[in-house]
């Protein structure tokens, strides 16, 4: 090994490397305390019958929690609800975000103002968004139902059939701006040459989009989807603010279930096992997406 690209190691180089490492130590300490310790602690608790109201009676039970999760219908329903939520929300966000990015790209002077306005929903705290929509969509008290009434529409937004989709729409309202932002960044980083070539060759807008824009954007799309998906998997605020997991179990997402079991029912061991199963699923998904990205990069 030639070490640092063939440079001769001077004493200055050694000192600066050592200084660098020293400066990183505080960050590592913080990471250790805030990240590594809780992660390992949760792993340990997931192997125990650990209840917050019975801390003097903690027992090691091995993989019993994990085994019981396999046959826990509430758990699988929560996973399914979360999956539906994520697929619906992220797909719509991608489509809308990309459409908006393409549209805004063509604007001339108003572009910056329009961009700033479009980003605004992202900056509102999610629980406030949840509470506001809870009342906006309220049949008796809200602003939206009377507007829909004008068109003869009566939608029971938080009834058993539509509640999960309504929450997904709220997510779309709040987070499409993030997708929009990432797509704008992606579009602006694309090389101009292929587009000029397409224009010279007389390609239609749709053709250009399908055969030039999309393929070039694919890495950016994959990253954007991954970022948003990881966030959407942890949906909690909208459920907590509006439906509490109901009606029935229609909107119980995995994060909300973990909260219920761990902090309302005090069964922290079981909740920790659920959290780790979620971690496993997320890591798998991330692995798949990273593999896709690698494949893109080498293609």
């Amino acid at each position: 090994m030639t070490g640092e690209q063939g440079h001769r190691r001077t004493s200055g180089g050694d000192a600066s490397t050592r200084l660098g490492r020293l400066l990183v130590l505080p960050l590592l300490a913080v990471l250790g305390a805030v990240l590594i310790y809780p992660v390992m602690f949760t792993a340990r608790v997931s192997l125990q019958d650990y209840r917050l109201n019975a801390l003097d009676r903690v027992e090691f039970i091995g993989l019993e929690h994990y085994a019981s999760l396999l046959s826990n219908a509430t758990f699988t329903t929560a996973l399914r609800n979360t999956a539906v939520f994520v697929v619906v929300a992220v797909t719509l966000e991608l489509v809308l975000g990309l459409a908006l990015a393409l549209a805004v790209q063509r604007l001339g002077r108003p572009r910056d103002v329009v961009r700033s306005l479009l980003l605004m929903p992202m900056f509102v705290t999610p629980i406030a968004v949840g509470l506001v929509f809870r009342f906006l969509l309220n049949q008796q008290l809200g602003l939206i139902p009377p507007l829909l009434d004008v068109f003869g529409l009566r939608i029971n937004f938080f009834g058993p059939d539509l509640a999960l989709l309504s929450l997904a729409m709220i997510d779309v309202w709040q987070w499409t701006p993030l997708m929009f932002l990432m797509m704008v960044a992606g579009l602006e980083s694309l090389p101009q040459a292929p587009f000029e070539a397409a224009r010279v060759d007389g390609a239609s807008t749709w053709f250009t989009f399908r055969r030039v824009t999309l393929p070039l954007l694919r890495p950016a799309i994959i990253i954007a989807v991954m970022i948003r998906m990881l966030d959407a998997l942890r949906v909690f605020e909208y459920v907590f603010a509006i439906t509490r997991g109901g009606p029935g179990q229609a909107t119980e997402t995995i994060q909300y279930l973990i909260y219920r079991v761990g902090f309302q029912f005090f069964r922290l061991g079981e909740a920790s096992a659920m959290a780790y199963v979620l971690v496993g699923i997320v890591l798998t998904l991330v692995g798949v997406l990273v593999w896709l990205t690698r494949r893109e990069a080498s293609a």
Partner: protein
Amino acid sequence: MNERRSQPLLLTLVLAVGLAACGPSADDTAASSGGGGAADEPVTLSAIMEEVPDTDIVLQLIEDFEADHENITIEVEALPFDQMRDRIITSALAPEPTYDIIVVDNPWMTDFANGDYLLPLDDYIEGTDGYDHDDFAEPLREIGVVDGTTYGVPFYNYALSLIYRSDVIDEAPSDIEEYRQLVADISAEDDLAGLAMQPQRGYKIFEEWANWLYAYGGSLTDDSGNVTLDSPEARRALEAYIETYEAAAPEGSLGWGFDEALRAVAGGGAASMISYNWMLPTLNNPDGDAGDLAGSFEVAEVPGGKAALGSWSWAIAGNSGHPDAAWEFISWLTSPEIDKQRVIAGGAPTRMSVLSDEEVWEQGYGQHYYETVGAILEDAEPLASGPNAEEVIEVVGTHLNAAIAGDESVDQAISRAAAEAETAFGQSSGG
């Protein structure tokens, strides 16, 4: 070279931190040094309370307390309900407590007592002259008792009652079937819903439905704590509740909780609701949410006569460093004289003597209100008491909501709720 040596070092550091987490946990809740200090040392007590009007009244009274007791200062942290329990648990588990004085909601009482989060108060009560502990309404008093030991004294009640528009409903029905017919009739004719219901999954639906359960002669548990929910009465009560929801509740109100129901009633969208008895003064307040409708509300016992009851109690944190000073405050605030002042200022009553005091009638909300509250408290029962009560409420509330949403039949919902309630009570943290 340097790099290769420091990598294993960093790795070791990471592993060390990780293993520390896996090792035996440090001793928890090391109680801070001994009992309260001498009464003359300056002491700062910290209290956690809920962000509700009753707390504002207490804050006023604290000023009087501090004037009388110069060595004691009280700092109150008022939080929304949803944040409180987590904060209390964190404080109870910490080596240094955040709070000395805790308000405890009745479903938490057994769990907190069993977890040693609270100090037993019997000795304090006996040692305080003129305290008259028996003067508290019996259901409220009993809420603070776990396995024969008193851990809390009543702060304020939130017993449920029927709140209704006296300009729409002449006389509140005392029979549940009458009430059901009445609200269905109102919904059928006017633009007004007969009642605003709160079928939100979990706590809210059970809090409301418990009154229906009692009206049909059912119960969650018997006197010995055995689960008695799986009964024909409970099934009838749930069927009736669902039928009334379909016939009389506002459209699309399946997920409604307290906020929606209150606004529906205050805004003239519904003629009645089953809600906390002290919502009456709030609704009739000319400066309050009801606007033009203020003054047109009345209160009565829930149809059927037996109400679900909730209540907050004062307790002293088990790991508090100043229990004596904490008791000095609590006993002062809940003493007959000061409690009377609290109720006159608008606080929800807890003492029978205060409820029948003519001065309170005059300066408070009138004789009818206090007599009604007295009648309610005579025959009211907490939603659930015992270990894991919170979980029991949530679990029953989940199945009730599943039934009204159509996910489960009434039969399935009741039998599953009863079975899971049994499990929750049985997998107890207590003895």
